């Protein structure tokens, strides 16, 4: 496994120098690992503006024989949305809208956020190795928002459709096995994309590109991300930020794209169990100048790790992040703990 190699010290390579400081303050509205878009010279985190128009998701309830189980697909999708809507410290006034009969992505209207099991008109549906895709549309400030108004900021999401592959076997019973995938696990991940979340390098997070057969709850990393994008005005729990810079030892040059994460050194559960979160490291990637800010960190004691993004998640899994900034993500350093 490639993670194993990270635990070895490679003397030939240079170490990353990390400085970290914890600052207790409300998190700003951009950071963590959101999906990023570049609009001219402006780099923006993609997110909805729940105040500009009601954001609803619209289910096409039609399913094929590939969806089996005792629960309806609609109830499973609703449960997956509720997992995000109920995330602590996040404000997500997102509701289920009227069902839709739209059955092709190319004819999905601008005011519909489609959840579709029978859409066959995109090339991905011919690959049984691709379980689902989420297509998120964001616009620059001043562009039409598709609901009669204009976007108030760059990167405003105005539409998001989730397409499940009709050629993949799904179960609604709560746990996948063999080639049958658990619908709620896949849906929870895709809804993260629907809301503007990109992949993370934290293995136990819902937004990690690969997941266990059944994973219906958010991790601390997922919650840090979603509450940073959509902060609640009065947080359920206090959190802070960890900031620092990753540089090459010796040359002192900044490292872009280092995966930096805060891992708790205690067994404490800063988020009460009522929130139904799984404790995990909380992560981010460094910017081209080597700086990072890990946001949404609950009170605890942490060790900070900087590692190259070379597996099991790789730079390709967050290609939008690199593309948004310009330079290629660096992996020419070894893991360091601080």
């Amino acid at each position, binding site marked *: 496994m490639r993670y194993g190699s990270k635990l070895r010290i490679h003397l030939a390579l240079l170490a990353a120098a990390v400085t970290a400081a914890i600052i207790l303050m409300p998190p700003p509205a951009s950071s963590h690992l959101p999906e990023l878009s570049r609009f001219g010279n402006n780099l923006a985190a993609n997110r909805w503006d729940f105040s500009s128009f009601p954001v609803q998701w619209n289910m096409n309830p039609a399913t094929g024989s590939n969806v089996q189980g005792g629960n309806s697909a609609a109830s499973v999708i609703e449960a997956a949305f509720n997992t995000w809507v109920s995330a602590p410290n996040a404000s997500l006034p997102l509701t289920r809208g009227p069902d839709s009969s739209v059955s092709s992505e190319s004819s999905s209207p601008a005011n519909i956020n489609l959840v579709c099991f029978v859409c066959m008109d995109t090339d991905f549906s011919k690959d049984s190795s691709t379980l689902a895709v989420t297509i998120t549309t964001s616009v620059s400030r001043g562009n039409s928002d598709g609901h009669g108004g204009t976007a108030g900021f760059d990167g405003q999401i105005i539409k998001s459709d989730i397409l499940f592959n009709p050629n993949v076997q799904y179960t609604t019973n709560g746990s996948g096995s063999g080639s049958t995938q658990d619908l709620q696990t896949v849906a929870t991940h895709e809804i993260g994309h629907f809301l503007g979340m990109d992949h993370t390098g934290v293995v136990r997070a819902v937004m990690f590109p690969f997941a266990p057969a059944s994973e219906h709850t958010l991790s601390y990393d997922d919650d840090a991300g979603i509450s940073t994008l959509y902060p609640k005005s009065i947080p359920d729990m206090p959190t802070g930020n960890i900031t620092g810079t990753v540089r090459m030892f010796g040359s002192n040059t900044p490292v872009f794209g280092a995966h930096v994460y805060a891992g708790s050194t205690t067994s404490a559960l800063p988020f009460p169990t009522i929130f139904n979160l799984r404790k995990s*490291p909380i992560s981010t990637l460094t910017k081209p100048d080597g700086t990072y800010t890990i946001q949404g960190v609950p009170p605890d004691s942490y060790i900070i790790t900087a590692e190259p993004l070379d597996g099991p998640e790789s730079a390709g899994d967050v290609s939008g992040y690199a593309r948004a900034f310009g330079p290629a993500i660096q992996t020419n350093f070894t893991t360091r703990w601080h």
Partner: protein
Amino acid sequence: MRRSAMRRDTMRKSPLAKYVALLLAALACAQLVVATTMVPVSVETLASRAELIMQGQATRSWSQWNTQHTLIYTFTEFSVAQTLKGNASGKIVVKQLGGSVDGVTQHVSGVRSWQPGEEAVLFLRASEAKDGTHVVVGLVQGDFRLQRLSSGEVRVSNGAPEVQFLNSAGAENISQSKPMTLDDLKTRIRKAAP
């Protein structure tokens, strides 16, 4: 919340040991994975599903709306250096869902684009639109990016956990091993698609 250490020599045994345990626990979970958005498939499976496998270099790309003005597609032109399955020469165009046009961006999870100059071995098939373009098999999985090391070695990766063998139930197990070289990849492709 405790201010974290700022010295380089703070790799203390106790927290490190805890972290090793944490990572090992994470690895145990990772070995049980099925994909959230993708099922990892082997080079051999990709080779059997692809109509065209080629090594090439991206030369230019552009994005445009579909005729209904509902979806944005990005087209990337590749200069073909070598074909490993099927026939292609000169230049081919690969089509992907997503891109940016006129201040509108469509982002598709599981799709990554190429910058001019990037090299890759691509597992392709003809687009369903029958417009002369190709699409990548398995989203990112059929896209092995080349990394040329200063030692001269050329490594390849598609970013997904590699799959090398079948378990007793016939499902493909994930096995991440040493980094794959371009020569290793070509050898496996030729064996799978002679």
